[in-house]
């Protein structure tokens, strides 16, 4: 039993390392060769975990070989357009100004139901609203709506808006996230007056504290309601 436990720990760590080294793509965004690697890795990991007569190398060696192969494929995928086309295929336009491209759908082994389902997934419930629909290499459908249906943007209305800014978490579940302070040129002393003002004695009582470029702070103490504050931050 101890063997199986130790093997499981080793295999888990190696699979974690393998997935980590393979990149950060979401499951839904996997390219065909990434999906293949993921499927095989899951199966390979199970073999030596459950049977102690099989050497652990039988799981680890193929797994690491796949990692190397995957890295090689990723490298070639990045460097060569032809290789990319060969392995991943290319995006296919399934709806254009002439309507649905039925032959393209057939080539993709897609039914009209698959297409309409994909369109609904893009919040497009009426095919006549679609100017272009493209099936991407990872199977996702990208939709471009007709100009008269597209949502109005600030630019269309000629409205000037403030520059967008990222909101960073400064305190997460009582822990200070040091690296986020540097992003806006702040230091940890920045929190002291805010905590004092809100009568918070210990940083551990803070559930979350975020800040954006305009100095807007979102603060919530543990088991209390949230507050929004304003603070000056250096430009």
């Amino acid at each position: 039993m101890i063997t199986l436990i130790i093997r499981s720990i080793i295999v888990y760590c190696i699979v974690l390392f393998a997935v980590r080294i393979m990149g950060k793509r979401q499951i839904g965004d996997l390219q065909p060769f990434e999906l293949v690697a993921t499927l095989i890795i899951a199966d390979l990991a199970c073999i030596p975990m459950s049977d102690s007569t099989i050497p652990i190398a039988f799981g680890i060696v193929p797994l690491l070989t796949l990692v190397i192969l995957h890295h090689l494929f990723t490298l070639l995928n990045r460097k060569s357009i032809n290789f990319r086309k060969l392995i991943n295929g290319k995006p296919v336009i399934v709806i254009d100004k002439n309507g649905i491209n039925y032959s393209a759908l057939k080539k993709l082994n897609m039914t009209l139901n698959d297409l309409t389902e994909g369109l609904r997934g893009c919040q497009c419930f009426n095919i006549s609203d679609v100017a272009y629909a493209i099936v991407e290499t990872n199977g996702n459908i990208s939709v471009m709506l007709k100009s008269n249906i597209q949502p109005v943007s600030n630019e269309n209305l000629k409205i000037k808006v403030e520059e967008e800014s990222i909101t960073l978490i400064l305190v997460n579940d009582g822990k200070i996230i040091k690296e986020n302070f540097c992003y806006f040129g702040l230091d940890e002393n920045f929190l002291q007056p805010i905590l004092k003002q809100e009568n918070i004695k210990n940083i551990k009582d803070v559930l979350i504290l975020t800040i954006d470029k305009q100095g807007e702070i979102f603060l919530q103490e543990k088991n209390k309601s949230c507050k929004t504050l304003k603070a000056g931050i250096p430009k």
Partner: protein
Amino acid sequence: MKRTISIIILTIILISFATFEELFIQNFISTLKNKAEQVSIVINKNEENINTEEVLKSVDNLKVFWEDSKSTICYFTNYEKIKSIDESFVKLSTSIKHNDMSLASENIAVIKDYSEFFKYLMGFNLNTLF
């Protein structure tokens, strides 16, 4: 960059492991075959009475070699597949004690056969590749 370095290290580790395995297996198989052949010759030489010092010594020599190599072999192959050779070693020792020539010859033949079988079971082999 870090990822590339990890991949290079992994590649080196895998190549080293594969090379070590290949060398070890080749060496192991040829030694096992030679030692089994020697035992076979000694048994045939002492056909009248195989329970002699010479036969026991050569069988012990083969057995010690097998026991020493077994733990390393288990890193490369499924233990279930090499389990039967262990039984042949036990039967060989017993048959020598009981001076059973036919059983001893049979078991040494099995061990020799295994040294051939290991070629296909372990290490690189085109037959098992496809």
